[in-house]
């Protein structure tokens, strides 16, 4: 097989009286190597887009968990001798309800508190026999940032046995966990991008090698290096965008399908667990932008690799 046997060129049919025209591109449109390059670019863009989407998803889920936890604080009222626990709980809840920025206060009843302790102490628990504190969950109004230090001081003055837990330690833990997951995702994305750049570069070199005769002939008939490099860069940018659109489009379609499927299963137990972990499973505008960046980046790498390879090939002729 000769170098260009795989050229998918179409011979214009001879037409009596018709003028010949220069319609063929300088760089052949479709070759086996070109199609293989499109396939490699598509696969690598798909993997890079999936990784980028997953990183966006993890970041978004971690952020949702943090804000969910940060929107609640817990008031704990300890049983103290010579004080009425129920009255203290009611008083603490009343103070919290009147505090600016609080949307709702829900006091856990004795039965609910018993159920919370069941996994550790078993059923049939009689709460009065144990010095178990009572809880009230305070929900923060949307957009409000209450001063929980001031709430704690107000409670300490009027209900000395009450304490406010703003979950700061847990939120910090969540934040560092979310950050670690995000950084890990970025590291994986970086590795995938490096693998993508390398594989696309080598595939581009292979595709250029099949066009070596074209480069050489152009060089020897007096084409300037910039003319040759520009034609190859333009053609390979097209191939890169084609492969990128296939790979990135497939990744977006997959995310869309999963989002659709997660919506379908929302009522089921598995769906609820899924929603608790990943929220709506939507990569959002940022995710879509990340995929578009992947397509542009990989197409750009393909074009630059072709230019560099052509220039290096030209250097071997001189």
């Amino acid at each position, binding site marked *: 097989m000769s170098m260009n046997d795989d050229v998918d060129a179409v*011979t214009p049919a001879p037409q009596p009286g018709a003028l010949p025209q220069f319609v063929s591109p300088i760089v052949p449109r479709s070759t086996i190597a070109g199609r293989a390059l499109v396939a490699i670019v598509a696969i690598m863009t798909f993997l890079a887009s999936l990784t980028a989407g997953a990183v966006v998803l993890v970041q978004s889920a971690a952020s949702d968990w943090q804000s969910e936890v940060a929107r609640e604080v817990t008031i704990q009222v300890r049983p103290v001798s010579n004080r009425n626990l129920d009255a203290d709980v009611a008083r603490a809840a009343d103070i919290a309800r009147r505090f600016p920025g609080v949307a709702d206060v829900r006091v856990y009843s004795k039965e609910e508190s018993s159920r919370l302790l069941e996994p550790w102490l078993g059923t049939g628990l009689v709460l009065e026999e144990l010095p178990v504190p009572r809880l009230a969950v305070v929900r923060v109004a949307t957009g409000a940032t209450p001063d929980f230090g001031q709430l704690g001081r107000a409670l300490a003055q009027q209900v000395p046995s009450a304490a406010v837990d703003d979950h700061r330690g847990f939120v910090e833990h969540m934040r560092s966990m979310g950050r670690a997951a995000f950084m890990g995702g970025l590291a994986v994305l970086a590795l995938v991008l490096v693998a993508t750049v390398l594989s696309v570069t080598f595939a581009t070199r292979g595709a250029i090698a099949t066009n070596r005769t074209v480069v050489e002939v152009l060089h020897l008939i007096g084409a*300037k290096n910039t003319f040759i490099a520009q034609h190859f860069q333009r053609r390979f940018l097209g191939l890169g965008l084609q492969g990128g659109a296939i790979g990135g489009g497939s990744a977006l379609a997959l995310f869309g399908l999963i989002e659709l499927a997660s919506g379908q299963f929302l009522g089921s137990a598995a769906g609820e667990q899924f929603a608790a972990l990943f929220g709506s499973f939507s990569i959002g505008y940022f995710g879509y932008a990340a995929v578009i960046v992947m397509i542009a980046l990989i197409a750009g790498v393909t074009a630059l690799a072709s230019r560099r390879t052509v220039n290096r090939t030209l250097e071997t002729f001189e």
Partner: protein
Amino acid sequence: MVRFENVGLRYGLGPEVLRDLSFRIEPHSFQFLTGPSGAGKTSLMRLLFLALRPTRGLITLFGHDIATLGKDAMATLRRRIGVVFQDFRLIDHMTTYENVALPLRVVGAEEESFRDEVVELLQWVGLGERMWALPPVLSGGEKQRAAIARAVIARPQLLLADEPTGNVDPNLGQRLLRLFVELNKSGTSIVIATHDIALMDQYDARRLVLHEGRLHVYE
């Protein structure tokens, strides 16, 4: 037009394949370059069409010392040289018409300005009916004529042909020689690299004979 002064060429750290070459190619001249296989004909041709630079000595082309020229200037100089390769080197995805028109296309000429000229040349070399055909379906002789047409379309001042009759029958070889003679009469300097004695005997021209890397000129 072309001047070689004590030119030597070696590949890497190997021995010199061309030694102390000193000769001139004058405007409107016709010469055969010959010698046994491995004597360095192809290397000398590559020096002439600027695909190689010498390891020593001076080469001037059209009055320019090639050692001082940049890439763009070399490209501009190559446009004044037509080359016919032994293996034709036609571009397979382009029609015969496009292959022949390529040297004009790369210099940015408008198709309207060269179409008639290309068609006329194709008819002159007997490829008027094959201008729509792709190189893979052309015969050896047709490829050779297309390669010659591509080499002369931009009216080069110097035409270099490497074994132009190596792949064709004697009858076609004679026709191609007549074509080169016609081109020479129209003002192009011709260098034909060949070891076909019969071909050289058909036309009385200067002979450059390479032997073991050294050049002997027979006027």
